[in-house]
């Protein structure tokens, strides 16, 4: 392709967009709506995932140390436990600390006030990298000399895993469906603009324009529609997310949910919006123009 053609195609794409103002407005409006729906759903999924991860990280297994070990011997086990694969961290809890924790849990029970720490064992609270490997990690911790018992609530771990798997599948499926629906709607919208210009296309074909030459202005138009839509959708998403986030932060009833600040996510969100907008715009244009390029 000759160099000067790029400027021409860009100019044609831009002027086509403005000369068919209503159809372009419709295409931009639909793309913005689709991006906004996809974006909102994705951001909800990302936040749900982050909240689930936070809950997961609070899930721990507890390894009890042999009663015959001295405090120093028990603390020395920490490095061996942390060497075990999938162990994110191991926190030593002495008998005394465990007794205090126990008392704190039952502040209204005077019978625990004089509880002797010697009836409890030193222990390690262990956090894992991957909850799916809880069983194997538990077995490995049990193999450490000086560890006599390991408590792991595998049902809770499996529950978290199942919840995340379901959330991921639902999220991916919905985004895929929305993407296909968006492409279909955009393709039809651009098909209408293409139909509106069938005479121009027929003239181009008649005078000997190649399919590539006929296609490029529509590709640029689709690209521009995608970029405009992405910018508008991004700004709306930002405003919407900000409003919802401040609503949750200020709510006295939704205290358990934490919202990721938009400032931490704006770069990937902008990139995904731009990518999806351009993909939808160009994909829709190419699909729409295809039948007009048949000889």
């Amino acid at each position, binding site marked *: 392709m000759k160099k000067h053609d790029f400027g021409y195609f860009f100019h044609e794409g831009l002027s086509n967009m403005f000369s068919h103002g209503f159809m372009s407005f419709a295409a931009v409006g639909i793309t913005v709506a689709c991006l906004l729906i996809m974006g909102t759903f994705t951001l909800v999924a990302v936040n749900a995932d982050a909240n689930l991860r936070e809950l997961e990280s609070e899930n721990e297994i507890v390894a009890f140390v042999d009663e015959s070990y001295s405090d120093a011997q028990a603390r020395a086990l920490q490095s061996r436990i942390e060497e075990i694969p999938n162990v994110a961290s191991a926190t030593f809890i002495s008998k005394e600390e465990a007794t205090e924790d126990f008392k704190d849990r039952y502040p209204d029970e005077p019978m625990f006030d004089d509880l002797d720490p010697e009836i409890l064992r030193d222990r390690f609270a262990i956090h894992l990298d991957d909850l799916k490997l809880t069983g194997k990690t538990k077995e490995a911790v049990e193999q450490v000399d000086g560890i006599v018992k390991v408590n792991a609530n595998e049902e809770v771990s499996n529950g978290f895993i199942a919840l995340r798997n379901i959330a991921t599948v639902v999220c991916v499926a919905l985004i895929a469906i929305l993407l296909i629906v968006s492409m279909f709607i955009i393709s039809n919208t651009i098909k209408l603009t293409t139909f509106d210009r069938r005479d121009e296309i027929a*003239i181009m074909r008649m005078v*000997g*324009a190649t399919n590539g030459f006929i296609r490029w202005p529509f590709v640029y138009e689709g690209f521009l529609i995608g970029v405009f839509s992405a910018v508008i959708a991004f700004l709306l998403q930002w405003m919407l997310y900000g409003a919802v986030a401040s609503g949750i932060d200020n709510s006295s009833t939704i205290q358990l949910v934490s919202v990721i600040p938009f400032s931490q996510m704006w770069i990937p969100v902008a990139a995904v919006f731009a990518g999806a907008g351009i993909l939808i715009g160009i994909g829709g244009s190419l699909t729409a123009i295809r039948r007009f390029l048949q000889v």
Partner: protein
Amino acid sequence: MIRLTDVEMQYPNGVQAIRGISMTIEDGEFVFMVGPSGSGKSTIIKLLTAEVEPTAGRIMINGFSVNNIAERQIPYMRRTVGVIFQDFRLIEKKSVYENLAFAMRAVGSPSKTIKNRIGYVLELVGLENKARRLPSELSGGEQQRVAIARALVNNPNTIIADEPTGNLDPGRSLEIMTLLEKINELGTTMVVVTHEKDLVNRFSKRVVALENGKIVGDSTGFGYFGGAKSEKA
């Protein structure tokens, strides 16, 4: 040069539009193609512009074989043929200049060439002062002149005109036909499909008559319809 050899054309719906036509049109020739509705005139235009493929026979046009032409070669074949239609087919939103520039851009002409060529062609068709007008601001005859200019602007070897005077009054029709004759004299092969007997009779040109998809007459001279004529070999 255009050469049709034993060309048959049957549409998918079973209509046999062309039945064994053979003819040759030499470079620089002016040919009227006449015949009633359904005689196959429009199908011949479609065949010559590779819009449809013949079901039998061979078609050569300006060095391209329409029978086995690769799809990507069709645009290059079409650049050798300018087409003029009865309904002008101009882009209403573009000015006269932009309509011509659009046709030149479509074949990749650079801006400088476009500017020079359009000036020359508009002068040739007598519209040098109407370059900035929209088609809706022109008369029917002027619009057809723009269509002729557009067919001519990419300097094709051949021009095919499909009922170019069908929408014009007799005075404008004669002007258009005279313009086509003038372009032909400059070296462009001209194929004019028409059913206007009076107009054909006024020019001493080759006339190919079609009926039911067959050639029923092929002669040169004044007065083909009812006047004296000289048979062509």
